[in-house]
């Protein structure tokens, strides 16, 4: 009697050789490359976004009347992009032909170097951006005179005995200095927080993969 296809299927797969799971040695290599490629794509998009934003902001700053802020923003962010683009070029040099563990280790070293450099930059970057805003708004035209001077003259009406240094209230200078110091001090941490916000999931996957491979190696 002819067997039904259902029986052929069931009986065929009862034999031991039918369902041998293939080795997946190469899987870790593919995953490592996938994670790093994903990071590279995100990193490139991020750099492009910074360039686009700083350019749009530069143009907008002229219309809003704070061109000093726009120019400082543009120059500072361009330097940041230039440095990071150079760092990214270093990432492209990582040999994909090495083992996944070696590949991830090299990538990890690159990431640590990149974070260390950007943390240092951030200590200057955030204060510079803050100062550019202050200077930009200070010199913004307000009915024929700079906004800062106008503000000071109005403060002087309310507080005529306020202490001034070069025509700027001491209290204002102190507050700005305090914020600058705080930004310089916490710049690295702000950068780390920002980094985790954007790349947190990639870093988590990377960490999982490294742990996984390390446990397989031990």
């Amino acid at each position, binding site marked *: 009697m*002819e067997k039904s296809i259902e029986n052929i299927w069931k009986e065929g797969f009862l034999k031991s050789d*039918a369902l041998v799971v293939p080795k*997946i040695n190469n899987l870790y290599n593919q995953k490592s490359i*996938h994670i790093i490629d994903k990071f590279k794509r995100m990193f490139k998009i991020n750099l492009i976004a910074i360039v686009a934003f700083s350019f749009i902001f530069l143009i907008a700053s002229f219309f809003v009347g704070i061109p000093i802020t726009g120019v400082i923003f543009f120059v500072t962010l361009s330097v940041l992009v230039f440095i990071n683009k150079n760092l990214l070029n270093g990432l492209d040099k990582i040999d994909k032909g090495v083992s996944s563990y070696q590949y991830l280790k090299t990538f990890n070293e690159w990431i640590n170097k990149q974070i260390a450099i950007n943390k240092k930059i951030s200590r200057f970057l955030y204060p510079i951006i803050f100062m550019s805003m202050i200077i930009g708004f200070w010199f913004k035209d307000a009915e024929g005179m700079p906004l800062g001077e106008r503000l000071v003259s109005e403060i002087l009406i309310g507080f005529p005995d306020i202490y001034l240094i070069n025509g700027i209230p001491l209290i204002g200078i102190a507050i700005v200095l305090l914020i600058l110091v705080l930004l310089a001090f916490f710049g690295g941490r702000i950068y780390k927080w920002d980094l985790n916000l954007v790349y947190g999931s990639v870093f988590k996957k990377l960490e999982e*993969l490294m742990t996984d491979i390390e446990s397989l190696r031990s």
Partner: protein
Amino acid sequence: MSSDFYKTSILPFAGIIIKLCRAYTNSQQDFEDYYQEVCLQIWRSKDNFREESQWSTWVYRISLNVCLTLLKKKKNNVQHFVSDSITVEETEDNYAFSDESLNLLYDAIRKLSEIDRAIIMLYLEEKSQKEIAEIIGTNPNNIGVRVKRIKIRLKKILDGKIN
């Protein structure tokens, strides 16, 4: 992918992944590539799993999608402009099961259209019409009729070859 994830979330379904990959490949090398790609894709997509269906359904769906995508890529690469119905490449000699009847059945399944291959395999895995429809993305009412037609077609292909 953590080895835990592989062991707990993929390995229990390795059977169906293997069976599906076998139906869309003709050589051990292709089969291993397809299997690997399916595992990788399941791992990549795990965060998208919303528990609206069973994990097994999710695995079947990904496996099928990966197989169809890879098959399409392969077809494009060799620039085969053929219809959906019959695309049979010669199967490598060493790419066979020890059970001759199963080999013949697989050869017959490979002669079916890509979607019919998936339907019949899910049917043979005793999936309900609803589940098959969910995985394929079609109406459950059509599945029963389609399975009957596929079985008739398979019987014709296998006619007299299996006792």
